[in-house]
């Protein structure tokens, strides 16, 4: 059922064009890598402030307000380009353990962020200094940072476990 859907995705005209074109895949991959560096780097700005290792003189609210719009824009681009890359070889990627783990880690990072926004970070506006930042928020930042590092690692390992230029 799922496999037949993946196969029809892979046979769709855009996916076929990406797979068979000489330069389409690398160009989309370039944009994907650029977007993911901005996602991971900008989210790390917030995480490092939550942990208390950087931007120590700024409130968590200020740091989030200036960087998270950039994170979300870059995430949208990474999601779009990632979906296009996936479609070009959907059946192979879907069965790759590193791809599966990467998706699970992104879901976990999203859940961690959701937990932060709904519960842990509700009074984030009052966390003016590192000393004001509660331990639960610091843990959320550390978890986020670890998850995104792992997402990058698993993403790189996908390329080495399917037959592709690395």
């Amino acid at each position, binding site marked *: 059922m799922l496999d037949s859907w993946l196969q029809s995705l892979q046979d769709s005209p855009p996916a076929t064009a990406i797979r068979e074109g000489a330069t389409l895949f690398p160009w989309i991959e370039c944009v994907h890598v*650029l977007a993911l560096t*901005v996602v991971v*780097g900008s989210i790390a700005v917030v995480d490092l402030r939550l942990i208390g290792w950087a931007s120590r003189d700024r409130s968590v609210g200020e740091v989030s307000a200036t960087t998270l719009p950039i994170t979300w824009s870059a995430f949208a681009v990474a999601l779009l380009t990632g979906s296009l890359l996936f479609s070009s070889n959907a059946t192979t990627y879907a069965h790759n353990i590193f791809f599966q783990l990467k998706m699970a880690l992104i879901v976990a990072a999203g859940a961690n962020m959701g937990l932060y926004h709904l519960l842990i970070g509700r009074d984030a506006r009052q966390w003016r200094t590192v000393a004001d930042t509660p331990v639960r928020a610091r843990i959320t930042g550390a978890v986020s940072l670890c998850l995104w590092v792992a997402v990058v690692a698993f993403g790189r390992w996908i390329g080495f476990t399917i037959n592709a230029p690395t």
Partner: protein
Amino acid sequence: MQSLESFCTWLAATPVSQAFQTTEWVIPAVQTVHILCVAAVMSSVLLTDLRLAGLGDRSQPFAAVARRYLPFIWWPLPVLLATGTILIVAEPGRALQNPVFVLKMALLVSAAAITLAWQLPLARNASFWDGPDGRRPAARLVALASILVWVAIVFAGRWIAYIQTN
């Protein structure tokens, strides 16, 4: 180019290169660290350049934004050079005999020059770029050049994998 080719052949035959080539996790792990450092640099460059262009967070002077992110632009560079060197030792011909790699190194020198071009005047005069003197057009030009060159570095980095040289 005869001597470069023989150098690459010699390097690839050294015990250290052989060890990198035969230990499966080395290249993906080192590439992961490399990409994470690129993420730090790319996001710091973007956040600084947006503010330099007058688009980012205006609640604080440019000098404060620059002071926050400059360490994350310069300090990853030694790690990038170290991890890049390991990748070259592991696969010498892939990079050294690749015109895209040469282009990437030239772009990297340009990026460093552009960063110094805004950093050095700022060190002498904290309000150099966003003072009342009206340097906004120049600031925008420098910011745009910086972003374009860094994006080109990321793209070139990925294209190294797709340009076959021998």
